[in-house]
């Protein structure tokens, strides 16, 4: 049986879906520096990301089921939207250096430490590559959501979206 792709079948947006939504930055923009990837592919009633952006780079408007639209020139990749998204669907990537940087939300215990080499996983939870933890940000205003930044080889900028949960024995 061939697996149908797309968010309603696989539980995460396909490459094709991601290429058509208004929350994703262009290749050129990614190469210039940190920028948000709003991987929100369904029209659900939700808009906290809009207010979370201090630069006005995210627009939902009315109705609030509109897909969030990214203004990639206004976005500086600060990452404040990552913890504000109730769906944990926003990531920040940086393709301007030798290695790619990917920031993602993380709400499990325990947290890794800065400098740790972690198992970095894709949207399906598959191990992709080892990556170094550059930053862990968890200010009170994020309300318990940590934002972790890992450094991975450039070819994995678009695939790595999280790390494996720590302290789990392999199943």
């Amino acid at each position, binding site marked *: 049986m061939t697996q149908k792709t797309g968010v309603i079948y696989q539980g995460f947006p396909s490459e094709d879906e991601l290429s058509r939504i208004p929350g994703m930055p262009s290749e050129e923009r990614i190469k210039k520096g940190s920028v948000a990837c709003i991987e929100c592919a369904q029209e659900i009633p939700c808009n906290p990301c809009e207010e979370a952006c201090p630069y006005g780079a995210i627009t939902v408007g009315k109705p609030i089921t509109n897909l969030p639209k990214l203004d990639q020139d206004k976005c500086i990749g600060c990452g404040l939207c990552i913890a504000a998204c109730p769906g944990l669907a926003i990531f920040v990537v940086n393709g301007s250096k030798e290695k790619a940087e990917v920031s993602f939300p993380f709400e499990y215990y325990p947290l890794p430490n800065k400098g740790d080499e972690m198992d970095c996983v894709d949207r399906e939870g598959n191990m992709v590559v080892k990556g170094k933890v550059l930053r862990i940000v968890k200010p009170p205003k994020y309300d318990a959501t*940590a934002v972790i930044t890992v450094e991975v080889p450039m070819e994995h900028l678009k695939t790595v979206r999280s790390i494996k949960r720590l302290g789990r024995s392999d199943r």
Partner: protein
Amino acid sequence: MRVLNHPILGDETRQFNATIIVDGKQIQAIEGEPIAAALLSAGIKKFRETQKNHKPRGIFCAIGRCTDCVMTVDGVPNVRTCITPVRDGMIISTQKGLGKWGIER
């Protein structure tokens, strides 16, 4: 198993301030928590045996509707353990069928 630290809820701060006796065995519990939670934390999943076919039952709805989790508590049968709070010194026993009144010793 207790969830002692949690990424959202933080660390458990309540005290284990009650002891309940379940089928003769002492279990540490927290005053006011549902009996069912205290049993689950001690790894007890079977709360009773059914009347007709003597089948095991445990927690199912946890909101006091399904009556699957009933046990004999301080000599009273058919107590819904998911909505009955723990008090120190409670004597609880696995209920067989419709249960019997009185504390079995």
